[in-house]
Each structure stands twice: as structure tokens, then as C-alpha cells.
């Protein structure tokens, strides 16, 4: 492993002090003179035609400054897939029809929140209720109600992948296994409710402060919906209290704040309530997954047929991407000589599902991993042994997808087996105890361009000064994961400076270089890190030139920036301080400031990702067979994220992922009555608290990703994948209950124990 001085070290976050002292400013903390407060009126019906809206009483209420409905806004639909305009299916406020309970119908801006809230009650909307559909099957069955006129089938997007001769593969298999899995939607449940504040600048341009993961995407989509030019909209991301995929699209309140600010000439702020977040907020896709896999007797995989329906809710949101990626995730982790995927995104009259940490992978890989464990059981093999046999390795090419340039999967499997005492525990089971494994692979990061940007995917500007400091400008969005700190570390390492020598400005679309696709698809470390390095290299070559000239060096000398100095590697005593070297360049350039732009767009790496992370996790559980309650005793994780830039941050990603994965497996779910979400508060949503968290041990594997900055790749999303399948397998090991429909609840376990029949429900296997 290469030795670094700042990368890989315990460096505290650069914003930790501000956050610890309460001085960090989040969007809702910002107040501007004359600011109005906005509230949204939401649909009480899951599917209805809007017959008429009367806003006159609301408008007459003293203190109300502006009321708008779908009638008042430009009829421009939006969505993140700009390359395929037909998928852009949403208006900021409902036009003619509402499609889910919570769909935004009207907006009010008033001098205070109480008045805005009162005004909502004065808006009269006449609806004509329509029949709704609330699950995948009824949405696509003959005679179903149509949710969007443009899409009579209710299937808005489909994606196919096919390679190898699957039928032949199955015919030649010794063992073929077919299962149906269902997975439920869950909430991002970020702690900071969404908030947006817009101001109309003196020149008529718009500035929007918003709680987002994607400032550039908001800038572009807001401009199009306001019918303005992109450069007339400035989006600033203040501190953001978590996103996890839930803050990566233009949303109604962002549009309304900007539109109403233009209309009234006053700043307008919207902040959602927690109730709104749960009632109408985005969520992870519920899915139905059919999977058929074939094996040889010795456990070698022959092929996989994977068919997935995504319950998309009322709008596409990020569903098309999830539909696409699910197909790729289905072919990851293991070597499938033949593979077929059909994914279909289905509209229902429920709050739209969207991206959430793992973006289709927690669902697809829950199916893959559970089926691997079932197959191991039936083939009489150890689950880890079966995985080892089929694991992808560095250099493997996934047909039509990408080549894996670094892969620590097998090492991860070996490591977790060793750490967890796997052999011993599987070999000598204790009553009520079980141990199980789940694995993951993830993209690092999303290389697709359905947003259709003409700019680089990630960019950086580095300015250096003769006082020995540097300024990094990047549009990358730190939403808590810590990319500001990681990027500073990468720059400091590259320029040989200290963390405190670097100032950072990030995520302001008017100040930072174009462009950045945002914080999703585990892009930032690899993409933005490479952009930063690109800029740093350009700066360094100028500095090297200056030092070379100053000391009249032979051209064969190579140079280095380290410990605040710039010097020839072979003659370290002949150098200048960083600041002196900058001053030399400036003199040579007769005053021109020294700055450089760097960028990164993956080319020639396939259309999905330039690199992959891998990992494995073991869970040990104890199940109370009387109550069905699962108590997770411990997790062991080994993961390959390449060079670890910031160990505490990487551990933090894992620990947070486990909290989310534990909730996904055991406790979190939306309780729905048709289209209505009933548990709209934290108390009833039941995400794990500090007392629910089991202990955990982790090993970061020593790997190096050639495409990554200093060898690094993603650690933010992949880790959210293995926990649910690991727990499910451990529960099976303890009780014989095989979960094929998440979440794992005491009722399901008790029922299975009662019937004491482990294999059932839509599954079959044939052994030759």
C-alpha cells in the first residue's frame, strides 16, 4: 500500500466544529428581510380529477401574499431523465389530476406560518374521485385504471438485458432454482426535513438555497420549469441534514419558492413537516422479483433469469434509473455465463418511490443473496463456499456492462468467515441462534448520463496563493457523508499542504465550476477526487517548471510537492516553499493568478460505472421462538473500498448503513391503507435507536483501484446492501424460516415455526 500523509489518516471533518457548536446553517435556519412563509396544499385523494379550485377566500385572508395552483404555472413537466423527455411526467403543482395522497395541489405564501396554514384551509378544491391502484398486480391487470394518459399500460419504463444462451444453460444445469421475492418500501428518514428558500435578485435572477444532493440538477430543472436560462438560476446548498437519495430531484416546494419569489418580489421559504415527509415523501421502491438460477452439481453457476417489477408510485421520480440499475445489480457479485433481465417500472396511486441508498441494489441483491443461500442449502454446500466458487474477481468482464478493475470479494469472504468464527458456529449450532451471510457489490459511481449534461460529470477549480494556501472550488454536494473533507484531503495530499492550508467553497452553482451531477450513485470520491487531482496536477506542473528554472535543474529531474515545499526528488535541498514557488510562477506570468481547472468524465469504462466496490457481512442472531423476536447479536464486515481516504468517515458510513439495513430487515415499513400512509411519525415508523444497535467489527481490505483517486472507490452505498440478506439467512439458520418477503417480522417467524415448513410460496427447484 502506498504511504500517504493525509489520505488514510484520522482527519476530523472540516465542518465538525460548526456542527458541534450549532453554528452550521441549514436551509431552514436562513432568514431574509421581508421573507414570506410557504405551505403546500396536498391531495386527500389517491386518484382524482380536479374539477375546480377556488382560492378567493384564501387570497382574501389578511397576511396572505400569494396563492398559486397548477393553473398559474408554466406547463413544463420535469424529471431527471432529460434525455428521454417522455419520462418527465411531473408538474410542480397538479394539473387536472391528482395521483397520490399528498400530491401537491396549491401553494400559499404569507407573512407568517400560522396565516399560511390557515389559508390552506380556505382553499376549496372540488375533486371527482377516480378508482385507484395500489399494488403492482392490480396496476397491470386487464382493465386497470390509467394513471397517466400518456402511458395506457401503467408500465412507464422497461429495460432488457440479455447475453449468453440461457435456455441451453438451464437445460444443461444439474440444479435449477426459481423463487419469487417481495421487498417493501422504506423511508430515507433523514433528520432534516426538506426546506427551500428562494430570492429574486435585483436583476430578476433567482437564488435558491435548498436542502438538496444535486444543486446542478436543481439549477437546470428549475430554470426549465420557470422558463428561464440555466445561468439565471443560482442554487446554493447550505448544510444538509442527510439525503440518502431522497433529495435528488426538483421538488414542488423548490419550484413554488422560486416562482412565488418572482411573483411577489419577496423571499419565500418552504419547510416540510415530518408528517408531510412520511405521508408524501419519496421512498425506496417496493419490488416483486422473480429469479431463476441454474447450477452445475459442483455449484458452478450457469445462468440467471431475472424479472423485476418496481412499484413506482404515482410518478417516475428516479424510478427509471432504479429499473435500469436493478438489471446490472442482478448480474453483479457472481459470474453468470448467461443472463437475462426484464425490469418494468409500474405506476400506482401511492407516493412516488425513488432513489434510496443502494438505488435498486438492496432489493436485487436481497434476492440474489437469499437465493444463493437457498441453493447452498439444497446443494449441500456451505453458503460461503458456494459464493467463493462463483465470486467475481479482478479482470472479470460483465458482458455489456464493464470490466472489474479491482475486486476484493474473495478476500472479504475469507475475512468475514474468519472474524465471525463462521465454521465453528455453523458446525455447532446453538438452540435459537443462527449465523448468516450477505454480500454486496456496488457501482463507483454512476456513469450514465440520462440527465444529458453537456458539462463534465465532476469538475474542480484549484487556486493557489503565495502565502502557501490553496482554495478548492467544487460543485460536489456534502450532505453529511463528508466529501468536502475527503476532497480537501486529496488536494492537500497532492499539493503537499496541510488541511488548514486549504479553503473550500462547494455546491454553489454560480461560484463553483460547471458542473456536477450530484451526490448519488456513489460518485463523489472517485469522480470528484479525480477532478481535484487533475486540477492539482496542472498546478504542480507550473510549480515544477518554476522551481526547475530557479535552480537551473537538468530536465531529467522529477519533482514533488510535500510538507509545504516544492523540490526535485533527487535533490530535496534545492527547493522552494509552496508559497515561494507560487510567487515565482506569478512573477513569470507577470501577475496572472495561478489557478487550474480539473474535470472527470468516465470514458471508455462502459455505460454504468468505472469501478466496483465489494464486501461481505456476517450477522449472528438469536431468535426467541415463543415471541418470534429477532435479536441481532453482532455484525462482522469486510469490505473493499480501495484506498480508504478517511477511516473514521468510512467506518461511519458502515455504521450508518447497518442502522438502515437493520431497520430494512426487521422494523421499518410504511403501514398503508390503500394509498394512504398511516404511520407518518418517527414513533410509528420505528427506525432503530441507540439501544437497538448490535456491536459490529469491520476490516477495510487493502486494495487499490487503478481508476480511483489514489486508489479509492466508494464506501457510501454498497454497505447498505448486505445487512438484510445476512440477517435473513441467520434467521433461517436459527429457525428454519426463510424470508422471501421483507421485512422479517415476529408474525412471519411464528407462523413459519408453527407450520414448521421452511420451503414454500412461489418457489420451486429441480435437481437432476
Amino acid at each position: 500500500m502506498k504511504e500517504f500523509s493525509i489520505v488514510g489518516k484520522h482527519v476530523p471533518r472540516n465542518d465538525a466544529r460548526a456542527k458541534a457548536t450549532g453554528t452550521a446553517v441549514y436551509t431552514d435556519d436562513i432568514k431574509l428581510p421581508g421573507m414570506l412563509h410557504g405551505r403546500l396544499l396536498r391531495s386527500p385523494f389517491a386518484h382524482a380529477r380536479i374539477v375546480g379550485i377556488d382560492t378567493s377566500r384564501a387570497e382574501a385572508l389578511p397576511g396572505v401574499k400569494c396563492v398559486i395552483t397548477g393553473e398559474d404555472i408554466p406547463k413544463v413537466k420535469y424529471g431527471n431523465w432529460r434525455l428521454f423527455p417522455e419520462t418527465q411526467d411531473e408538474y410542480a403543482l397538479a394539473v387536472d389530476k391528482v395521483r397520490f395522497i399528498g400530491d401537491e395541489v396549491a401553494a400559499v405564501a404569507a407573512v407568517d406560518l400560522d396565516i399560511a396554514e390557515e389559508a390552506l384551509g380556505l382553499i376549496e378544491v372540488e375533486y371527482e374521485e377516480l378508482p385507484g391502484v395500489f399494488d403492482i398486480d392490480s396496476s397491470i391487470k386487464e382493465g386497470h385504471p390509467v394513471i397517466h394518459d400518456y402511458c395506457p399500460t401503467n408500465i412507464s419504463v422497461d429495460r432488457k438485458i440479455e447475453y449468453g444462451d440461457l435456455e441451453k444453460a438451464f437445460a444443461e444445469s444439474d440444479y435449477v432454482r426459481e423463487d419469487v421475492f417481495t421487498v417493501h418500501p422504506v423511508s430515507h428518514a433523514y433528520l432534516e426535513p426538506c426546506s427551500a428558500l428562494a430570492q429574486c435578485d435585483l436583476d430578476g435572477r433567482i437564488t435558491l438555497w435548498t436542502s438538496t444532493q444535486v444543486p446542478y440538477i436543481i439549477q437546470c430543472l428549475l430554470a426549465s420549469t420557470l422558463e428561464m436560462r440555466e445561468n439565471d438560476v443560482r442554487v446554493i446548498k447550505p448544510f444538509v441534514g442527510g439525503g440518502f437519495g431522497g433529495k435528488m430531484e426538483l421538488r414542488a416546494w423548490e419550484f413554488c419558492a422560486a416562482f412565488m419569489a418572482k411573483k411577489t418580489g419577496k423571499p419565500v421559504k418552504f419547510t416540510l413537516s415530518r408528517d408531510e415527509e412520511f405521508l408524501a415523501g419519496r421512498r425506496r421502491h417496493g419490488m416483486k422479483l422473480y429469479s431463476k438460477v441454474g447450477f452445475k452439481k459442483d455449484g458452478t453457476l450457469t445462468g440467471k433469469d431475472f424479472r423485476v417489477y418496481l412499484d413506482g408510485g404515482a410518478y417516475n421520480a428516479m424510478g427509471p434509473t432504479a429499473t435500469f440499475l436493478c438489471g446490472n445489480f442482478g448480474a453483479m457479485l457472481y459470474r453468470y455465463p448467461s443472463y437475462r433481465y426484464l425490469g418494468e417500472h409500474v405506476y400506482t396511486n401511492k407516493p412516488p418511490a425513488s432513489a434510496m441508498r443502494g438505488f435498486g441494489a438492496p432489493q436485487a441483491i436481497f434476492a440474489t443473496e437469499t437465493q444463493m443461500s437457498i441453493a447452498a442449502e439444497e446443494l449441500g454446500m456451505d453458503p460461503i463456499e458456494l459464493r467463493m466458487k462463483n465470486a467475481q474477481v479482478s479482470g472479470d468482464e460483465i458482458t455489456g456492462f464493464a470490466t472489474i478493475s479491482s475486486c476484493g470479494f474473495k478476500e472479504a469472504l475469507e475475512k468475514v468467515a474468519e472474524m465471525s468464527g463462521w465454521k465453528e458456529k455453523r458446525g455447532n449450532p446453538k438452540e435459537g441462534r443462527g449465523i448468516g451471510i450477505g454480500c454486496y457489490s456496488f457501482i463507483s459511481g454512476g456513469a450514465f448520463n440520462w440527465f444529458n449534461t453537456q458539462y463534465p460529470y465532476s469538475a474542480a477549480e484549484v487556486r493557489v496563493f503565495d502565502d502557501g494556501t490553496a482554495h478548492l472550488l467544487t460543485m460536489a454536494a456534502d450532505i453529511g457523508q463528508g466529501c468536502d473533507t475527503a476532497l480537501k484531503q486529496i488536494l492537500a495530499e497532492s499539493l503537499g499542504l496541510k488541511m488548514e492550508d486549504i479553503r473550500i467553497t462547494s455546491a454553489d452553482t454560480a461560484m463553483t465550476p460547471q458542473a456536477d451531477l450530484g451526490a448519488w450513485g456513489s460518485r463523489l470520491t472517485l469522480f470528484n477526487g479525480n477532478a481535484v487531482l487533475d486540477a492539482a496536477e496542472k498546478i504542480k506542473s507550473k510549480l515544477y517548471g518554476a522551481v526547475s528554472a530557479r535552480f537551473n535543474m537538468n530536465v531529467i529531474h522529477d519533482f514533488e510537492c510535500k510538507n509545504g515545499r516544492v523540490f526535485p526528488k533527487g535533490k530535496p535541498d534545492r527547493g522552494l516553499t509552496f508559497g515561494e514557488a507560487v510567487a515565482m510562477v506569478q512573477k513569470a506570468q507577470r501577475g496572472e493568478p495561478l489557478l487550474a481547472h480539473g474535470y472527470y468524465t468516465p470514458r471508455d469504462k462502459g455505460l454504468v460505472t468505472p469501478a466496483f466496490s465489494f464486501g461481505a457481512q456476517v450477522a449472528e442472531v438469536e431468535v426467541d421462538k415463543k415471541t418470534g423476536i429477532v435479536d441481532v447479536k453482532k455484525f462482522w464486515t469486510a469490505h473493499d473500498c480501495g484506498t480508504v481516504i478517511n477511516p473514521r468517515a468510512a467506518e461511519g458510513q458502515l455504521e450508518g448503513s447497518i442502522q438502515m439495513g437493520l431497520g430494512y430487515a426487521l422494523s421499518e415499513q410504511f403501514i398503508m391503507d390503500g394509498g394512504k400512509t398511516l404511520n407518518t411519525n418517527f414513533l410509528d415508523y420505528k427506525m432503530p435507536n441507540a439501544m437497538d444497535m448490535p456491536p459490529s467489527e469491520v476490516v477495510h481490505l487493502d486494495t487499490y483501484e487503478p481508476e480511483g483517486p489514489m486508489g479509492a472507490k466508494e464506501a457510501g452505498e454498497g454497505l447498505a446492501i448486505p445487512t438484510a440478506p445476512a440477517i435473513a439467512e441467520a434467521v433461517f439458520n436459527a429457525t428454519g424460516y426463510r424470508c422471501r418477503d421483507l421485512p422479517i417480522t415476529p408474525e412471519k417467524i411464528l407462523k413459519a415455526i408453527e407450520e414448521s415448513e421452511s420451503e414454500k410460496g412461489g418457489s420451486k427447484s429441480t435437481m437432476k
Partner: protein
Amino acid sequence: MKHVITLNVNGDPYAIAVNPWQTLNEVLRENLNLTGVKLGCGEGDCGACTVIVDGRAVSSCLSLAVEMEGKKILTAEGLAPTGETLHPIQEAFIDKGAIQCGFCTCGMEMSALHLLTKNPSPTESEIRESIAGNLCRCTGYTKIVEAIGAAGEKMRESSERKSS
């Protein structure tokens, strides 16, 4: 009808006219611009709004402002009043990597302060119990629990030094 309440926040006296339905959270955030007091749910479920009122950790979103007459309130901003030396709890949160998005942080710190004042050497499970009402979606609580333990140690050391 507004009532004027007088209260002490982070050592400073205030007289504020409030509506009977207004919460302490609203007064601290809207009237006093204290951004260390967050609003994560408004329903007493998340703990992001936790402040110390007369020595007890309370959810400011559930406390009515009119009941704060004569009370002493401490928020994260009051933990290190001069801003130069941080409180050991803040230091530990920074050092241990217990902060990610930071939205839960100030509330966590106030719950930690409440615990460590009552119980200077808490066990891990006592720490976990004391923040069971403070939700975090980023950290899995691991480093927060570590930070509170480390802060307790530091606070004990410095009080021993003072008393010896």
C-alpha cells in the same frame, strides 16, 4: 393575546412576547435565532430539538413557551460560551467522528450533558439509554456513544483536577 415571558438563555436575560400556543423551540429558533436548536419532527420523537431547562433535558418542540417564565435554558450555543475552548462533549464529538450531517448533533450533545451531569461514569448501556430518544440516521450511533464515553472521562479528569 400575547404574554411576555422572561427567561435566561445561555446566561443572557430575555423578555419575549409569545402566543399561548407557541413552543420553546419556536422562541429559540425564530425569536433568538439559535440554530443549535433543530426542528426534526415537532412531535417529541427525534430529539434534535433537545435543550436543557433548569438542569433537565427536554424536547423544546413539546414545551410551551409560556411555561418557561423564570427558567434557565441551555442550548448547544451555550456549551462553549466564548467559542474558543469547546466543551469536552463537543470536543469528543469532533475527535471521535461522531458527526456526519450534524442535524442530530446538538440535541445529542444536550442529552449527553444531562447524562454526564447526573452520572459522571456511565456504562455503555446507560449512554445508549440516555440517547434513546435522540434519533440519528447517519452514524448508527457507534461513534456518538464512544464520544459520550470519552467526554465523560475528560470531564471526570478535569473535575478531579479541580478538587485536588
